[in-house]
């Protein structure tokens, strides 16, 4: 069992506006996920869902370090990454409702969020499938000298796949500008990470590729932001690729109605206390940047606009049979 990092969030060198922005984006993701979970369990929403409650600091910390012209790849657990990269609640909710107005016209669904204008290729639901793809995106940036960076999100489970090792190695030998971001939430589905590797950390395994992998407190949005900033700067300066292991915890089920019986209770309780949103909130209040009431108001505002979006989603046009065979080829 890995204990949560105990360090306080160090916000001293940042302005209130920046910090409140991080807070708001994390709450946005949390409430989106909680709202979607309710709609799913209620039966309003089709399919299956993989959610990221508890991992918001990873998505927000990393995407805040990116420029709008940079790109991300994501996974089956992609709602948080998409929101952090700037996709709107509307386009994502509409997609989850299978609407023609969703970000993939209803054809993709929860596991394939996409917006090519906002720097997000379709999320890849095959574990580790995005790793070589991100290396290829970064190779394209390098060959075309665009100065862009690719950020590649995946989980601890992905480290066991061949695609991970092949992709990371090519990125390394060609020095391409990609930041690999492993959200180590300690479980691949129901399987604990200690059952799938002998090394103590994922980060240390990267040294075999000549990459300086670092383990970061993934529930500290500032720590994530700072590590991502350095990694992105390194990549832009031609010193890529970079690798970050963000230690975090999944507060919700792996998917659908999973009750997480495989997470030992003491571990779960300990980690739930180290909630990334609560931690930043406490730091904001202690520093006098916001009152508890003001933070509550942020949340309420987000909830209200989410509820409005749900109402809109329910009345969006669905695709018709004419859409069935479109988009197979470009």
């Amino acid at each position, binding site marked *: 069992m890995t204990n949560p990092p105990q360090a306080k969030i160090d916000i001293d060198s940042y302005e209130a506006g920046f910090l409140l922005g991080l807070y708001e984006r994390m709450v946005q993701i949390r409430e989106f996920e909680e709202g979607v979970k309710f709609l799913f369990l209620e039966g309003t929403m*089709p399919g299956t869902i993989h959610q990221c409650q508890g991992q918001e600091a990873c998505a927000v910390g990393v995407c805040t370090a990116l420029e709008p012209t940079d790109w991300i790849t994501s996974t089956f657990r992609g709602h948080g990454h998409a929101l952090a990269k700037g996709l709107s609640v509307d386009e994502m909710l509409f997609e989850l409702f299978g609407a023609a107005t969703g970000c993939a016209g209803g054809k993709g669904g*929860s*596991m394939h969020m996409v917006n090519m204008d906002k720097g997000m290729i379709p999320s890849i639901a095959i574990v580790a499938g995005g790793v070589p793809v991100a290396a290829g995106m970064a190779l394209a940036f390098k060959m075309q000298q665009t100065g862009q960076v690719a950020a590649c999100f995946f989980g601890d489970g992905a480290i066991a*796949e061949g695609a991970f090792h092949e992709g990371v190695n090519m990125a390394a030998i060609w020095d391409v500008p990609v930041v690999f971001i492993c959200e180590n939430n300690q479980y691949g589905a129901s399987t604990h990470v200690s059952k799938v590797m002998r090394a103590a950390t994922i980060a240390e395994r990267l040294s075999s590729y000549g990459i300086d992998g670092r383990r970061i407190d993934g529930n500290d949005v500032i720590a994530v932001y700072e590590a991502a900033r350095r990694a992105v700067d390194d990549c832009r300066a031609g010193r890529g690729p970079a690798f970050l292991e963000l230690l975090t915890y999944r507060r919700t*089920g792996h998917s659908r109605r999973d009750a997480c019986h*495989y997470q030992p209770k003491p571990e779960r309780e300990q980690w739930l206390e180290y909630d990334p949103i609560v931690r930043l909130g406490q730091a904001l209040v202690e520093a006098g940047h916001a009152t508890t009431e003001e933070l509550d108001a942020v949340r309420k505002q987000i909830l209200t606009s989410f509820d409005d979006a749900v109402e809109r989603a329910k009345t969006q046009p669905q695709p018709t049979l004419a859409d069935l065979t479109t988009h197979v080829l470009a």
Partner: protein
Amino acid sequence: MTTTTTPKRVSIAESLRGAITEEMERDPKVFCLGEDIAVPGGWGGAFTVTLGLEERFPDRMINTPIAELGFFGVGVGAALMGMRPIVDVQYGDFLFLAMDQIVNNAAKMCYMSGGQCKVPLVMRAPVGATGRGSQHAQNLERYFIGVPGLKVVAVSTAYDARGILKAAVRDDNPVLIFEHKLLYGSKGARAESGAIDASSEIPEGDYVLPLDQAAIRREGNDVTIVGWLLTAHLAQQAADRLADEGVQAEVIDARSLSPIDFATICASVEKTGRLVIVEEGPKTGGVGAEIAAGVTERLGDRARASIRRVASADIPVPFTPVLENAYVPDVPRIMAAVLDMVKG
């Protein structure tokens, strides 16, 4: 040797679980390899098939990392050295990651060694569109039926699942078993909406079923409808409704996809003179194409009408329910094809 079971109605998931348990008890060389198949408090694989087996067989339920190419290769190696592994993927779509080990190694070792070695490997894969989008929905049967050295079967009832799993474990060749997410009858958090009842009364005692035989699910003289997995059930539903319209359809569950049981299918088509093949998956390059070609070759113009295929459009599987429903063949489309043929 434990061979008795109480005769009761069980789901496909329960039936497979029982069969795996009994085979593991019968033969200490049988073991399971797969993701999330042996975690206490976990799920027993993606669809509950191995639920609780880790308590009974702590050393032979091996929970793998997410590494399909790797653990399918491990399965091949263990099989070469005399073990009888059962490996599974959580979704059929991930067979693409394991494909090299299945096609280049498992299927070819016997032949390219001039018969010196054998690979008694059982592989299990759930297929079918169930609201999960393009990468968790494909029907993979088509990609494996043309691989010599591999036996490919599809189980659509709990009775078959038991007999076929047991036969596959005892077979000296690699056997790939396709299962359908909507037919498992998985319960609790792993239940599927839109599921179809594929449960059966399981008789007492041990039995195996042949790996190369289709099953006639319903007899009729007017038309032969061939399906497998979900479409075997849809074909039976269509046949029931067609009977109301005075059309007697013979329904065949192809069951064995490689080899295809042309003897059974052709005998039926000789009788009815008409063949409709129902396949979940794009029409182009499907199993249906192989069945149609094989029947045509064998029967020539002894069939009265040309063969029809009711299959999915040539598209990836769409997420949104309106499009996914149009993708998966349904009873009205099967009926329309049959009626058109019978009247035409």
